[in-house]
Every structure is written in structure tokens, then in C-alpha cells.
């Protein structure tokens, strides 16, 4: 149900992305005719029907490997990212991923040749060192977590770049692939690499599944977890180990700079859709997988698009959609709720003002709209829209232009509003010792949220009141 909606929004995103990339081109396509044409030709050539079919139907072996690999990676990162995100350790992944570079370089120098598994072992070692460095630096007074992350990230990366610089001058030809780890080079992925990612994904998912209870307890309330005997340090360590595993196997596909996005973004996006941790984990995995799938597919369709960046952009699209469209926590839903509340408040204010005016003019009287405007200092525009809304709801009639009458059902509502308002005012005066001249404002805010239960309690408190009590401070429209 959820994933269906996501799939639809992702399709929309796909279309947007396809449209937006060439849209950026005209500015420089028109500039220097000869060269820029060649750029457009190579980079933004619309895929032919044949390419499209080949990629989408996985007929191409290379594409198949890459797409499967990145999809699995996205899913694994989505799962473990959920817990890292809730443990508020998401950016630790950033320090970790940057800290893998020196390990890769050292492994290369020691071995003198490229062997992916060994390079990844090197990456793991310095990555873990980076994590410990962050933890160690945090214990120093005056070094805060954010600074510790920034320090480890940049200094370890600096060490890596120094070593890469040395490597570049040591040999020729061999080192070309190493910089692929920085931005990612999904196209270079082999079947064995995809298998590696697959195994890692299984370990991550199985680990999170088995330790779901422990992870949940530690993420929510580490102190309580520790008090009931959960070994918080060990659980944190396992969680971090799974983050390291995901990061390291993802280096080649996404690159060390952007891998952190796969840990954070799907989890943050999933949080918008659900309040249940299990569902959030599943959704996050789905979002991650979809980003991996669409990202690698796009970059296969449109050559020269860096795969890692496109994957992250897809994830960003999912995040943007989630933030806008999610049913409860989304921005649109929130602003709709806000708008509806304001409209309802205005409607109730209008009815109450009419009920107060009827007290002066007599029941069923035709009330001049000028008096109404005076009652609440509304702008003409606002009043007109309020009146129109009230008429649509059948609460008022307007026989002539400037005259308003309450319908019977409108009158019943209006008198109920007025009664609630005054009951609350009386309650405040009698029980909260608030001056009569001040209760009106208070009651104005509260009356809209008075449930039937509260009104009944009010009635119990104020047993002497029946019907609509007179205003305790003199009607406002009269003053």
C-alpha cells in the first residue's frame, strides 16, 4: 500500500528528472557552437528505443549487475540507516566513509596491485579507526561531536589524498581505479562485487531483524535499556559494525563522499510516512532500493551521468516527495490542517457573533451586516468569505444584500457556541480568579476545542446555569 504510493511518486520523479536534466543544457549549448554541440551529443543523447528496452529489460549483462548491486545496496543502507538515524549517529557514517580512503591507499601501496577484497579490508580498518577517533576526540573537553566528525572526516581524507598523490607518481596505469572510490564508479562493478553487496545486505538485514528488539531499546532510551540489562555498548558496537559493512561494500558503487546520503535520506524519508519502527525500517529499505534501482538505470540510459550522484538525487527526490506529501507529517497535510482549523475558527466566531447580535435584535431578526463587521473588526474581504462559507453550510440566509438571518439549524449551532463560550468565561471567573474583563480572549481560544465531555464537566461545575447564560462582562457588540 505504502510502497505502491512511493512507486508512483518515484515514477513522477523519474519523469521530472528526465525533463530537468536537458532543461539545464540550452544555456551552454548555445554558447560555443562547435564544442558544446559535441557535449550535448555525447552526454544528453536521448536513449534510443533499443537502448531503453535493453536496459529496462536487463538484457545487458553489465547493466544487470550494476542495477542489482545498487538496489541491494540501497536496501541494506536503508535498513541499517534507520537505526543509525534514530540513534542520532547518521553523520558518524560520513566520518567513517571519508576515513576509508587512507586504508584503500595503504592497501594498494602494500600490495602494489588492485585486488578489491583486500582494498576493502584496508578501507574497513581505517574506517573503524576513524569511528574510534571520533569517539576518542569526543572525550576530550572542548571538542564536541560535530567538530570531532569534521576533524576526522577532513584529516583522514587528507591522509588519503597525500597517499594517492604519492601513488600517482609511483606507478603508471595501475592507480587509475583508486579515485573511483571517491565518487563511485558503478560501471566498473563486476558480478563478484554484486555478490559481495548481496551477502552484506543479507548480513545487515538479518542482523537488524534478529537484534530488532535491542536496537529499538537502545535507540529509544539507552539509559533505561542499560538499567534492564541490555548491553548498550555492545549493541552500539554491532550497529556501527553493520554501518561500516554497508559503507565499505558501497564505496565502489556510490563513492565515499555520497554513501552517507544512502544511510540518512531513505530513513529520514520513511519517518514521514509512519509512526511504527518496523514499518519505517521496511519503507526505508524500499526507498533505498528504489533509489538504487532508478539511479543506476538512469545512468545506464544516459551516459556520462555519475551513478552515485544520480542515486543520491533519486533518494533526495523521494525525500522531497515524502516531506511534501506524507499524510500526517507532510508539509501539505500540515498546512491543510492549519488552514482548516483557521476556517473552522472563523466560522464559529461568525456564528457566535450572530447569536450575540440576535440577543439584541430578537430571534429571527434581520441583522445588518455592518453591525456584524463592527462586532469582530473583520476586513470586508475576510467577512465576505466567511459569510459565503456559512451560507454554503446552510447556517445563514441572505435575503437582501446587507442583511443576514440565521437559519434554524444555524441558530442552534450558534447558541451552542455562545453557551460554551460563556460557560468557559464563568468557569474562569469563578474558579481561576480571572478578571471578567480578561476572560473573553481566553474563552475565544478555548471554545473551539471544548469537547462534549468537557462541556458536561463545565455544566457539573456550574450547576446553577441553564440555557445560554448572559455575558459576564456585557456583550461586546454593545460596548
Amino acid at each position: 500500500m505504502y510502497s505502491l504510493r512511493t512507486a508512483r511518486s518515484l515514477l513522477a520523479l523519474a519523469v521530472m528528472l528526465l525533463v530537468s536534466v536537458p532543461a539545464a543544457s540550452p544555456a551552454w549549448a548555445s554558447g560555443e557552437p562547435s564544442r558544446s554541440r559535441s557535449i550535448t551529443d555525447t552526454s544528453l543523447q536521448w536513449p534510443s528505443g533499443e537502448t531503453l528496452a535493453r536496459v529496462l529489460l536487463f538484457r545487458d549483462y553489465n547493466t544487470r549487475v550494476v542495477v542489482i548491486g545498487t538496489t541491494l545496496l540501497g536496501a541494506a543502507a536503508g535498513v541499517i540507516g534507520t537505526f543509525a538515524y534514530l540513534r542520532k549517529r547518521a553523520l558518524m557514517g560520513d566520518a567513517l566513509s571519508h576515513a576509508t580512503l587512507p586504508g584503500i591507499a595503504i592497501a594498494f601501496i602494500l600490495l602494489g596491485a588492485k585486488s578489491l577484497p583486500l582494498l576493502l579490508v584496508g578501507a574497513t580498518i581505517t574506517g573503524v579507526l576513524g569511528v574510534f577517533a571520533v569517539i576518542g576526540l569526543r572525550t576530550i573537553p572542548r571538542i564536541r561531536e560535530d567538530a570531532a566528525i569534521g576533524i576526522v572526516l577532513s584529516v583522514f581524507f587528507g591522509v588519503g589524498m597525500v597517499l594517492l598523490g604519492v601513488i600517482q607518481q609511483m606507478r603508471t596505469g595501475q592507480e587509475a581505479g583508486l579515485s573511483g572510490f571517491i565518487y563511485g564508479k558503478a560501471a566498473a562493478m563486476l558480478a563478484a562485487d554484486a555478490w559481495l553487496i548481496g551477502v552484506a545486505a543479507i548480513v545487515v538485514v538479518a542482523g537488524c531483524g534478529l537484534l530488532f528488539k535491542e536496537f529499538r531499546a537502545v535507540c529509544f532510551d539507552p539509559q533505561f535499556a542499560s538499567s534492564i540489562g541490555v548491553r548498550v555498548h555492545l549493541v552500539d558496537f554491532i550497529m556501527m559494525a553493520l554501518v561500516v559493512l554497508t559503507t565499505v561494500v558501497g564505496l565502489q558503487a556510490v563513492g565515499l563522499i555520497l554513501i552517507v546520503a544512502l544511510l540518512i535520506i531513505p530513513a529520514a524519508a520513511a519517518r514521514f510516512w509512519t509512526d511504527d519502527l518496523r514499518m519505517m525500517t521496511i519503507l526505508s529499505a524500499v526507498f533505498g532500493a528504489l533509489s538504487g534501482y532508478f539511479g543506476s538505470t538512469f545512468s545506464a540510459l544516459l551516459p556520462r551521468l555519475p551513478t552515485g550522484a544520480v542515486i543520491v538525487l533519486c533518494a533526495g527526490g523521494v525525500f522531497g516527495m515524502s516531506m511534501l506529501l506524507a499524510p500526517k507529517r507532510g508539509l501539505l497535510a500540515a498546512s491543510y490542517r492549519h488552514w482548516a482549523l483557521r476556517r473552522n475558527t472563523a466560522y464559529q466566531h461568525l456564528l457566535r457573533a450572530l447569536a450575540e447580535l440576535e440577543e439584541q435584535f430578537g430571534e429571527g431578526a434581520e441583522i445588518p451586516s455592518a453591525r456584524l463587521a463592527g462586532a469582530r473588526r473583520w476586513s470586508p474581504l475576510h467577512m465576505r468569505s466567511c459569510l459565503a462559507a456559512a451560507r454554503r453550510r446552510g447556517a445563514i440566509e441572505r435575503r437582501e444584500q446587507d442583511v443576514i438571518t440565521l437559519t434554524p439549524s444555524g441558530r442552534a449551532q450558534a447558541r451552542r457556541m455562545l453557551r460554551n463560550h460563556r460557560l468557559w468565561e464563568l468557569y474562569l471567573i469563578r474558579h481561576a480568579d480571572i478578571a471578567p474583563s480578561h476572560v473573553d480572549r481566553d474563552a475565544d481560544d478555548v471554545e473551539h476545542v471544548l469537547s462534549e465531555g468537557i462541556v458536561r464537566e463545565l455544566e457539573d461545575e456550574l450547576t446553577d446555569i441553564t440555557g445560554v447564560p448572559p455575558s459576564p462582562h456585557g456583550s461586546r457588540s454593545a460596548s
Partner: protein
Amino acid sequence: MSNIFASRHQNGGDDHDPACPVSIHDMTVAYHRRPVLWDIDYAAPQGKLIGIVGPNGAGKSTLIKACMGLLPLASGSVRFYGKPYRAQRQIVGYVPQRESVDWDFPASALDVVTMGRYGRLPWCIPPRRRDKNAALAALEQVGMAEFSHRQISRLSGGQQQRVFLARALAQDALIYFMDEPFAGVDASTEAAIVTLLRALKARGRTVLIVHHDIQTVREYFDEVMLLNMRIIAAGPVEEVFTQENLQKTYGGRLTLLDKAAQAMARIGRH
């Protein structure tokens, strides 16, 4: 002879009464070498509601956290029915301060209460039906059954506090530590908590409660501990909760303690 050689290595591992729910012996707790609790000696009576009262910064929360091993002790020992905390986790329940967690966490009230059962479950084993039922029963007891599936951020402050209480109930402990359960709750929650405390007492549980409101001490508690970095006085409310003791607790007359603590912190750092 014994007095001459009484050194700091003689660390009161002596006589904790195995019948005493919580016995604290010579406990000192320090933050960055600055002592915040000094020489606490206390034996909680069985089956009583015990209020821990004192001014801000008196170390009330520190005391219960240290008892539960959440803070390291600079010296001393704590025993629960004669055994250390490690061996007795099952029988000690904890209600932390409400502000200590992020209430936007994706969990329902039932999820949170079920966490109270995690201590009984081995690694990797998810909570079973029996644990869910215990959690539901606990929610029922605090009058929150109808909100069991509501996301915790959509509960009011008082309701959140009740969820924490229910979580402790689900632990089904013999001894409870509660950190300011009455802080910032509405009148109906306060009444519900008091009812619950009396029910716990009726079942023979011992409850230690950090409390900030002196007005209600007489009404709520059987025993009281007046704390201001040290135990000023402890015992039955009617004996201990006197004007004179309160003045000692709240009037900052004993500046020497502060001076000594500062000296220890300063010299320790330098």
C-alpha cells in the same frame, strides 16, 4: 591497632542486610572528581513509599542513577536484598525523567511499555504474546489502555508519564526507582500515580521516588530521605519531616562541604 591501619583500602564491603530491599553503604559519587554525593548510608525499609527530597542540585537523580549502576561510584556499594545490582536487575524497575528521551521516536505507547519486558528476554528473541499481554495489563493499570496504539508524541505530558510508569510496571519488579514522576503532570495523572503507588505498596513493593514538591510529602509518602549532597535525615515522615530538618536541607548553611568539593575538583584537575 585496627584504627592505625584503617586505610582507604578498607572498603566497607561489610554487612548488607539481605532482608533490606535497598541498602546503600558509604556511597560517594563524583562528576569530574567533584563529589556530588557524599558518604551516603541508607537502608530502605521493606514495602514503603519513600520520598527523596532536597533542593535543586542536591543529587537526588544522581543517587538513584548511581544505585542502578548508571553512574560510576567513587566509593561504596549498593545491595538489593543483599546482592549487587547485576544479579538483581530483574527485581529493580526504573522510571526515568520524562525529558530523558526523544518522544518523536517512531513507537506506540504499547511498544514503549513492552520494552519493560526486554530485560527478561534473551538476545535476538522478540517479545512474545505473553509480554504484549503483560504490557497491555500494565497500560490498563495506569488507565491508558485506550491509547495503546497511539504514537507517543501525540500523548499529553501526563499520559507520557503514565506510559513510563506502565513500562516500569511491566517489569514486574520488587523495587522501583522513580525520577520525578510528578513533574509537570496534570491533576488527574497525579491522582492516578498516587493510586498506583498505593497499589504497589499494598503488594509489598518498595518504591523510592525523587520528589520536588514539599507540600505533598506528608500526604504521599511513608518515609522520607532529606538529601543535600549528604543525607540530612531519613526515616518515617512524621519523625523526620520537621521544620528544623527542612531548614538544614534547604538552607545553604554548610558552605564547607562546597569548599571541600571545589578543592577536590580543582586539585584533581590540576
